């Protein structure tokens, strides 16, 4: 606890710095964010087309899909905006470039994950909030639940990203595989949870925790199943602790790249 508050303050300072750096290239920023909004909306268009032809998927309708996609999109946006450095961790580790973070008097995990902000993440945030607003499922009473779900889902995205990228401590350059894992996670989180069963469902609540990112939040928000809220918070805690443990264990095996560099 004695390091938690300073780490949070440090994270806030890094966020402001990254935001200034991202906004410095104003045209590129708006282009990235704007195109990401277009990208997300075009992708979501398949669902109005689908539900125009078919009535539902095990009770799931277009409004549910908007909430599912909205939570997943907003959480992903929060992740890459606040902790965009996660996606480059494997590269840093295998190239021996973590040195610059290790020499700083701050938590290396916090410093590494918050080292970058992806401008396109703002586009995800805008799309996600837009879809949630127009889903027809979210009223004023649901807003606190949405905030809780997005916070938990973005922490799970970040934690699983850290775990996947940290495998590089043992396996070397696995950056593209780690990114592909994230793609799997996103892929599963934007389809109706009601169509998965058996082994697939077990995988979705363990190795590829898409169930916690969007399926379970939808149950909490749309159907007010409060036990899902408790499960969500519990699972988030477990994934966060696991990420910290895996990164710390990997750091003990880390070998420096012996390169000179300056981290401003």
């Amino acid at each position, binding site marked *: 606890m004695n390091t938690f508050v300073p780490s949070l303050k440090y994270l806030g300072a890094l966020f402001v710095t990254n935001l200034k750096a991202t906004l410095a290239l104003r045209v*590129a920023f708006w*282009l*990235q964010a*704007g*195109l*990401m909004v*277009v*990208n997300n909306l*075009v*992708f979501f*268009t*398949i669902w109005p*087309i*689908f539900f*125009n*032809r*078919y*009535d*539902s*998927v*095990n009770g799931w309708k277009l409004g549910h899909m908007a909430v599912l996609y909205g939570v997943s999109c907003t959480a992903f946006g929060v992740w890459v905006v606040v902790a965009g450095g996660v996606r480059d961790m494997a590269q840093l580790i295998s190239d021996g470039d973590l040195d610059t973070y290790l020499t700083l008097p701050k938590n290396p995990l916090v410093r590494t994950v918050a080292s970058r902000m992806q401008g*396109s993440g703002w586009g995800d945030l805008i799309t996600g909030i837009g879809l949630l607003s127009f889903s027809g499922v979210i009223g004023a009473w649901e807003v606190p639940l949405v905030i809780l779900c997005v916070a938990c889902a973005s922490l799970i995205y970040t934690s699983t990203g850290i775990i996947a990228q940290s495998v590089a401590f043992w396996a070397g350059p*696995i950056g*593209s*595989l780690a990114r*592909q894992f994230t*793609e*799997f996670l996103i*892929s*599963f989180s934007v*389809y*109706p949870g*009601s*169509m*998965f*069963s058996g082994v*697939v469902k077990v995988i979705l609540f363990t190795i590829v925790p898409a169930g916690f990112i969007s399926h379970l939040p939808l149950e909490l928000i749309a159907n007010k199943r409060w036990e899902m809220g408790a499960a969500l918070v519990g699972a988030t805690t477990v994934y966060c602790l696991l990420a910290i443990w895996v990164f710390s264990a990997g750091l003990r095996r880390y070998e420096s790249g012996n390169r000179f560099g300056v981290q401003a």
Partner: protein
Amino acid sequence: MNPTTAQRVHPLAKYAALGAIAARQTLVDRAVLLGRAVFIGLFLLIFSQLWKTVLSMGQRGEHSVADLVWYLLITETVLIATPYLHLDIEKDIRNGDVANHLPRPVSYLWSQVSQGIGQLVVRFPAVALCGALMAWGLTGELPSNPAGLLYALPLTFLACCAVLISNITIGLLAVWIVDINPLVFVWQKLSFILGGLIFPMDIYPDWLRAVSEWTPFYAYLYGVGRLAYTPDPMVALGSAGMLLFWCAVFVWIALWVYRKALRVMTISGG
């Protein structure tokens, strides 16, 4: 090799050699191959579950689950088997490596095309085979008219070539827009919608289908994918014609963009 021997080398031999090297490198990079195979398996799994759920609820549909899964196998193979050369080209342009390629006695554009085809020759059978096994495992059957798969096989490869050239053109645009990722995302998502990547265009509203027929996405995704359940030689011929037309258009655009890009790179020093 002395100059006399070098002069005897057929110009195409240089590109064939580049393609062969790229094919060998792709074979060595098994993790990426495995990743792509898993990726197509994952999509087939998700959508086989979706169609099983929807059609088991007695909702209307013209096609069986097997038809729809084999359709998805073809459309996904087109996008997953095609190398992401635009990312390599963007990297070359951003870090200035393209300057090292320009003085070489091979065109940068055609060297990328030949390397892409070299990679494709390895990736295409790997992805298609893994996907076909997965589709068969998930549905337990071939499509209702499996003869269409025979037409689909060469046309899917041709569709991959069309996507490859469009990817290279997008990569070259990095000379002007630096970060091509947003453009790639939009291009991919337009493929989703206007190409019928996930859902066959038979379920689309008429107006959207009419719009998509004028785009390349229709030709290289739905045009090929529909052969999974339409084993009609005339349909296959129509799809082949559309694909050849769009390949020619993409090559023309790529050459035009490349010439413009070369001028910009020469002026700014690469």
